């Protein structure tokens, strides 16, 4: 039996750009992906399920839904999670998403995340860095003036997903903004979305996200708390460690 089930309730477009985000550092990906779904008025298209997911459903407008869902619009597919997932689920999820992306002939998988920086409080507008799985991805990022992360570790789900896509030399791009580690960071999410909208030519109105920053921080307090608990298991502290080649 499959560890992760993908239940498609609507047609998923072929050759789309697939955005896949989970709660992580500063909840950057979670905020950015859910904002994107709302602002682009994307259509609910299915959900993911697994015995490894926590026994949780979420209610939206009276309707019970899986917390890990699929949304589509034109050539864009979003897979997002509203809850922090346990480490044992992440390995299978990354593998399944990579397989599913191949089935759907996805052009590229994009993830949004944060790079924790200790001086975030002094940064007005967080910088965005890119990581590309293939040389073509890195060229694409360079051409679009996205600074590439040169050295360091990535840990957690995005690292797993990049690894899965790299195995088959498939395209995968991580856009990472300077962010708070333990506080929801809508400012970093806005930076990531600004970069995404520029390089993929998708118009997104970011004004409400910046204006309602405080509301997001209050609303996402509990999710942040639960996500922090998963950091230790996901070896997030590695992201502060210089790699061996520095020595």
């Amino acid at each position, binding site marked *: 039996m499959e560890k992760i089930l993908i239940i498609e309730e609507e047609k998923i477009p072929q050759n789309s750009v697939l955005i896949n985000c989970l709660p992580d550092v500063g909840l950057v990906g979670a905020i950015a992906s859910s904002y994107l779904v709302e602002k682009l008025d994307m259509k609910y298209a299915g959900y993911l399920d697994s015995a490894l997911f926590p026994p949780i459903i979420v209610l939206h407008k009276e309707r019970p839904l899986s917390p890990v869902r699929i949304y589509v619009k034109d050539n864009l597919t979003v897979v997002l999670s509203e809850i922090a997932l346990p480490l044992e689920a992440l390995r299978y999820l990354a593998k399944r998403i990579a397989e599913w992306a191949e089935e759907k002939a996805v052009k590229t998988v994009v993830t949004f995340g944060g790079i924790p920086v200790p001086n975030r*409080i*002094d940064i007005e507008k967080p910088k965005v860095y890119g990581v590309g799985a293939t040389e073509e991805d890195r060229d694409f990022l360079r051409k679009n003036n996205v600074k590439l992360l040169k050295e360091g570790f990535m840990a957690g789900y995005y690292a797993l997903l990049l690894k899965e896509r790299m195995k088959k030399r498939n395209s995968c791009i991580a856009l990472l903004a300077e962010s708070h*580690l*333990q*506080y929801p960071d809508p400012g970093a999410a806005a930076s990531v979305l600004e970069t995404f909208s520029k390089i993929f030519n998708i118009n997104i109105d970011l004004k409400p996200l910046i204006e309602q*920053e*405080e*509301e997001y*921080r*209050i*609303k996402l*307090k*509990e999710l*942040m*708390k639960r996500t922090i608990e998963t950091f230790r298991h996901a070896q997030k502290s590695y992201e502060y460690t210089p790699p061996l080649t520095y020595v």
Partner: protein
Amino acid sequence: MSYEFFEIIRRLKREVDEFIEYMERRFAEEIMGDHWAECIEPLAEVRELPDRYIITIDLPCVRDKNNINIKLTENTVIVEAQMYRKVSTSDLLSNIKKTEFSAYRKVIRLPQEIDPKRASATFKRGILILELPKKSYGHEIRVE
């Protein structure tokens, strides 16, 4: 002899009272989570350095440093802050009975004593930063 006996009884009574109060508080926290005493508990991070603690507390909707009250003892930090608007439990996406909050309260107990007189605080972009020097930072010795 009788004085000592009653002193022991008084001490025992005080300890039992403190324990009951502690258990009541724990029970209320279990049931109410952060929604206790019309305050919500903000997110906070405590970093321990060799000579001091650095505590940051996320206080969205607090606009002014004058709305923040910090009380320090040698091993406790209590931060209370007033928001500029009320926040409802529905904002927090909670299913519990609708209640409104307009303040934060956070109590942090520190494992090592600090010197409250040398402490400092700054407030920037809705985040409070406390620098709390430790009371004793060991004794330096020379390497012979």
